[in-house]
Each structure stands twice: as structure tokens, then as C-alpha cells.
């Protein structure tokens, strides 16, 4: 129990502190709203947020549905961290995965589900993997830092997928550009209105990634490269190969996140479906300390925020964007854990992921990870 507290105290207290600071922001900003200054607005807002996320069966299902892509996205970012890579490109890889799954799914809409669903899922996974491979390869070969290349690829993905839907795969019979109905390719609903198969799949992936990192040679190499690329190279590992491979696997996880969101929730690709999964995943991975189990819990928490926020905005007119602010504050207090330790007078392990030092060290980095080719 004490061991768990040592690991989990800073993340938990960071969340508490983030909620307190966000409450101050809500109170101060209430001055400019029509209702005027309201000291108790945060209580009402957080109450609706909680009620929307956990207050009913539908709420809990919505939380889990929102958590599923965040679990996979968080794993994508977390796996990158393990190798000392910061994949900010989850947003783009997610979109490419969703698009590939939508196109494959629409083409197999009439086929039996046992065939159509796996093919559509694999298409999405491959799409994400391909889109993750590009920055991975560039980092490995040329040293171009993934933080900038992945952000650029995010922007490019939105534009190029818009073109693809307009000019290449637009389905006939709709008043706006979109892909066709996915029919039998949809993820089966297990419970209630929309608790789809993607949720257990995401949880299974948590254990698959855990197994990959802890029990396989590749996992060991990934962790070693993340801790110290030079040591990895001198002991005969291949930092260049591992860098490209990790980004590809990370992109694949983000692509699967896109597929389950497409096949389980959205149903078709249309320009402008950009969601918040990309940046949420970063917060999830940091909060979960890039540990798969930690990511699972962090994703459920942020899934609850996303599921509860609409009710909060309707009932208390506190804008949904407060969730982004809370997220940023959580990251702030995790990065500056000194603040949390001072405020709550606790002693605990450093919550920041040690491999992050490698991310900063390779910045604009002269040479590719692990020295020159």
C-alpha cells in the first residue's frame, strides 16, 4: 500500500491541485458571464461533470467509450516515451487510421462481419503504422526531431485526407463529402446503446504492450535505447532500427485507436472529424507515467472528463475547454512536481518519466540517436 502511494501520490495530488486551480479560473471568469460572480460555480460544474460521467448507466458507458481510444493513444505516446521518443503525431496517425478503416470498412460493408471487421481494423492499424514510420525513419536516418515532423504531419494529414475524401473516395448519394456506410464492418455492440467490442480490445492491448515491454527482447532494446542510446549502441543493439520500429508501433497503436473510433462510434470519414484524442493521449501517457497499467487508469479518468463535459456546459455554461485547461494543469504539476511536494508536504518518487531526458537531448540533435550512422 505504501509502495502504491509512493508511485501514485504525485499524479493523484497533481489532479487535485489542477481541479483547485481550474476552480479559481472558473470563479474569476464568472465575473464576465451574464449570471455574474458566482463563488459556488465550480462545485456545480464539477458536480455536473461527475454526474455526466458516472451518474447513470449511459454515463458510465459513455465514459468507457471515450476512454477506449485514449487507452490506445496513451499507449502510443507511452511506448514512444519508453524509447526516448515524443510522438506528438498521434492526432495525425489517428486520422489516417480512421480514414483507412472507414474506406476498407465501406468497401466490405456487404461482407460477413468475421471477414469485414478484421480487415478494416488491420487497414486502420497499417495506415497508422505507415504514418508513424515516416517520422521514425526520418529521425533514425537524419536526426530530424520527431516533435516538429509529427506536428507538421498532423497538419498535412488533415489537408490530404480532406482531398482524398473529396476527390478519391467520396461516396455517392450524400450532400457532403464523406465515405460510404460501413455496414457489417462495424464493431458489434456488446451492451446498452454503444458499449462496443473496441473497449475490451483496448484493455487487451494494454496487456499486450506490457508483455512486449517486459517480456521480449525488442521491449528490452526499446527500454535500453530510451534510457541511454549510446550504451545501447555499444552493447550491440540497433538504436536506429529501434527508433524507426518504435515510431511505427506507436503509429500503429494510434491507428488502431482511429479504427475503433471509426468502426465503433463515428461510422464514416468526413473532413473536420478531428477530435481531441491526439493531445489527450499525451496527458494520459504522462499521467500514467508511460506505464501501461497507469495509462489504463489515466485514460478512464480523461474519458470521464470528455464524457461528462457536455452536460457540464449545458447545465452550468462553463465552457468545455475547461477540460483542456485541467489537462494542461495536470501536466504542469507533474512536470513541476516541486510545487505539488511543497503544497501537500509529501515525499515521493519523481513522477517525470526518466526517458524524457533523451527526448530533450536529441532536440535539433546534430546526430541521430545513438551517434552517427
Amino acid at each position, binding site marked *: 500500500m505504501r509502495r502504491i502511494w509512493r508511485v501514485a501520490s504525485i499524479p493523484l495530488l497533481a489532479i487535485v491541485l489542477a481541479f483547485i486551480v481550474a476552480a479559481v479560473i472558473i470563479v474569476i471568469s464568472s465575473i464576465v458571464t451574464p449570471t455574474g460572480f458566482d463563488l459556488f460555480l465550480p462545485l456545480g460544474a464539477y458536480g455536473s461533470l461527475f454526474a455526466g460521467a458516472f451518474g447513470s448507466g449511459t454515463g458510465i458507458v459513455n465514459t468507457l467509450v471515450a476512454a477506449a481510444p485514449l487507452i490506445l493513444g496513451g499507449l502510443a505516446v507511452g511506448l514512444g516515451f519508453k524509447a526516448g521518443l515524443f510522438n506528438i503525431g498521434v492526432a495525425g496517425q489517428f486520422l489516417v487510421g480512421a480514414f483507412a478503416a472507414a474506406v476498407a470498412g465501406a468497401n466490405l460493408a456487404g461482407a460477413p462481419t468475421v471477414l469485414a471487421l478484421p480487415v478494416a481494423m488491420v487497414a486502420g492499424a497499417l495506415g497508422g503504422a505507415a504514418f508513424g514510420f515516416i517520422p521514425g525513419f526520418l529521425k533514425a536516418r*537524419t536526426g530530424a526531431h520527431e516533435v516538429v515532423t509529427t506536428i507538421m504531419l498532423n497538419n498535412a494529414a488533415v489537408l490530404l485526407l480532406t*482531398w482524398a475524401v473529396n476527390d478519391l473516395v467520396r461516396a455517392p448519394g450524400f450532400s457532403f463529402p464523406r465515405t460510404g456506410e460501413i455496414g457489417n464492418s462495424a464493431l458489434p455492440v456488446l451492451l446498452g446503446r454503444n458499449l462496443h467490442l473496441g473497449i475490451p480490445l483496448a484493455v487487451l492491448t494494454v496487456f499486450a504492450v506490457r508483455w512486449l515491454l517486459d517480456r521480449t527482447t525488442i521491449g528490452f532494446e526499446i527500454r535500453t535505447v530510451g534510457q541511454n542510446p549510446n550504451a545501447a549502441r555499444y552493447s550491440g543493439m540497433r538504436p536506429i532500427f529501434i527508433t524507426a520500429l518504435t515510431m511505427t508501433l506507436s503509429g500503429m497503436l494510434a491507428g488502431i485507436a482511429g479504427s475503433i473510433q471509426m468502426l465503433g462510434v463515428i461510422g464514416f470519414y468526413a473532413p473536420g472529424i478531428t477530435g481531441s484524442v491526439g493531445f489527450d493521449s499525451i496527458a494520459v501517457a504522462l499521467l500514467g507515467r508511460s506505464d501501461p497499467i497507469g495509462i489504463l487508469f489515466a485514460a478512464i479518468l480523461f474519458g470521464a472528463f470528455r464524457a461528462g463535459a457536455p452536460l457540464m456546459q449545458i447545465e452550468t455554461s462553463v465552457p*468545455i*475547454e475547461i477540460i483542456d485547461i485541467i489537462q*494542461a494543469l495536470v501536466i504542469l504539476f507533474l512536470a513541476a512536481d516541486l510545487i505539488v511536494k511543497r503544497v501537500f508536504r509529501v515525499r515521493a518518487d519523481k513522477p517525470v518519466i526518466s526517458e524524457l531526458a533523451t527526448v530533450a537531448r536529441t532536440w535539433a540533435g546534430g546526430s541521430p540517436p545513438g551517434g552517427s550512422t
Partner: protein
Amino acid sequence: MGRRLTTWRIHLMELIGTVLRLIWELAVYLFTVVPDLLPIILALATPLALGALCGVLNERSGIVNIGIEGIMLVAAFFGYLTGFAFHDAIGSGPSIALGILVAVLVGALLGLLHAWLTISVRADQIIAGTMMNIAAFGMTGYLNRLIITPSGLGGAGVIAPFHLPDAIANLPVVGPILVMFLEQGPIAMSVLFIVLGLQFALFRTRWGLRTRAVGEHPKAADTVGIDVYRQRYLNVILGCALAGLAGAYLTLESTGSFQNGMTNGRGFIALAAMIFGRWTPIGAFGGALLFGTATALGVVVSIRVPAGDLGTLMQSIPNEWYQALPYLITIVILAGVVGRSTPPAADGVPYVKEGKG
């Protein structure tokens, strides 16, 4: 067999001929169209150049700042909000001036936050920047929905760009260049001076020497009596004030309105321009102009269609590809340039004073 090989060769020669002709036509097209585009290119390059200068000042003193995007966005919002709030009371011109001032101050304030996090708290520099970007997106979206959207009012407007007399603008060679730098609003007009001033300051003054010293070898700088923390604080704040000016440019000089997430990756393109320019102000400005040119060409191709086959070819490329061009060029430049340019040696490495653990 021999005959088929010959026809194959003829086809290849024809293809090479066509490609060469297209390249020639493209060169002619660029030569005719770019002089007219110069003012637009500088306008598009302005926020990128200011953002890149922010990067130069930060990284030359050893601090990585990937939060430029977020700082620009917050400054753009508060600059706009100020102009919007004071427009009726003091009129368009003064409220815009006040807005620019507020944006610069907001930039400096966020710079202070980044400096405190990275220098004093020694938080991870990449994470601090990521936090800044997410917070900026959330904060501006939150306040936009709370204040600006419900009011339904427009902003403070923009300052009309300056116009040169036709006699000067029509001068050969010099005319287009004067137009490029002078037919602008005040912020774009001042960019060139800021760039030249910083280039001089960084390489010819005591401040510049100290800045480069704390970025290359903080311990040595400390030994000779330079206050590393103070120098880093100062430069991060100054740089972020420039990012604030870039934000002011977006809402108060260029568009006259605020949209959520309107920086649209400019903060990151600015970082690429900085790397392209090898961490020098003039080089970074060159990088920004290159991106400005790419963006401007994407827009102009659909308006001024080149003649002949080139026109047909350029028209057949979808609009979205032209819009994606600056992003793709950023990636190509990073991949091509990074390995060959050296960042400041202590870039991204926190400095711990001896005896301060």
C-alpha cells in the same frame, strides 16, 4: 528487340525534354510572378520570422522552447481582446496600439513562466512547452466562448498598410523590394529592423557574447562571473515577447479577428525556420521567407494560372496539396538540414549551479 529499345529511348528523351521544358516554364513563371508577390511573402513570413527569433534567443542561451505556438496564440487572443474592449472608448488606432502592447506583455509574462519552469524548477523543457501549447489552446478557447462569441461584436479592425507613391513603387528592381518592406503594417515593417538588430546584438555586443556563452558552455560562463540564470531568464522573456508580437500580428494586423487554434502550426514552422537558419537571426528570417514564398505560391497558382502545359499541370494538382506544401517543406528541410547544422552545445540541458544540488 532493337527497334523496341529505340522507341523506348525516344520516349525517354521526350519525357526528359518535357520535364526540362516544364522546369524552364516554372522558372519563367516564378520570375514574372514573385516580384508582385513580395509584399504578401513578407506578410506571411512575419509571424514565422518573429517566432523563429524567439527560438533563436531561447536556444542560443540553452533553453528549448516548443511552446512558441501556444505563446503566439495566447498573445493573439489577449491583443485582440484588448483592441475589442477599448475600441468604442478610444477609437480604432489607439486600441490596436494598446492591443499590440498587451500582446507583447502577455508574451513576456508567458516567457517568465517558461523560464521559471525550465530554469528554476528544472522541469523537462519539452514537457513545459507541450503544457504551454495545450494550456494556450484550452484557455483561449474557453475565454473565446465565454466573452467574444456571445458579444457578437467585431474586433478593433486592422491598421491599413502604408502605400508608397507610384513613382517610387514603379522603379525597376528597387521598386518591388521597397514595396515589399514598406507597403506593410507597422509590425511587418519592423521585422527587418528587429532581425538586423538582433544579428548585430548577438554577434557584436557584450550581451550577445554572454548569451552565446551560457548556451554553449554554462559552466565556463559561470566561472568567469556571468550569472547564467539571469542571462537565461532575460533571453527567454525577451524572445517570448517577440512571439507575443507575432501573435499581435495575426489578430491585429493580418486578419482582424480571432479563431480558435488560429496559429495553425506556425510556432512549429518557426522552429524549423530557426534550424534552417542555423540559429542566426538573418538565417531564420531567410527560412521564414522561404515558407512565406511556398505559401504565397500555393495561393497565387489558382489566381494567376501560368500558360501552356505548366498551367495544365499546376491546375491538376488539388488545392489541398498546395495548402499542405509549407508543412511538407518543413519536414524535408528538417530532414535535409538538421544533420549538417550544429545547435548550441548546452541546448536543452538544465544548468545546476555547484553546491545547489
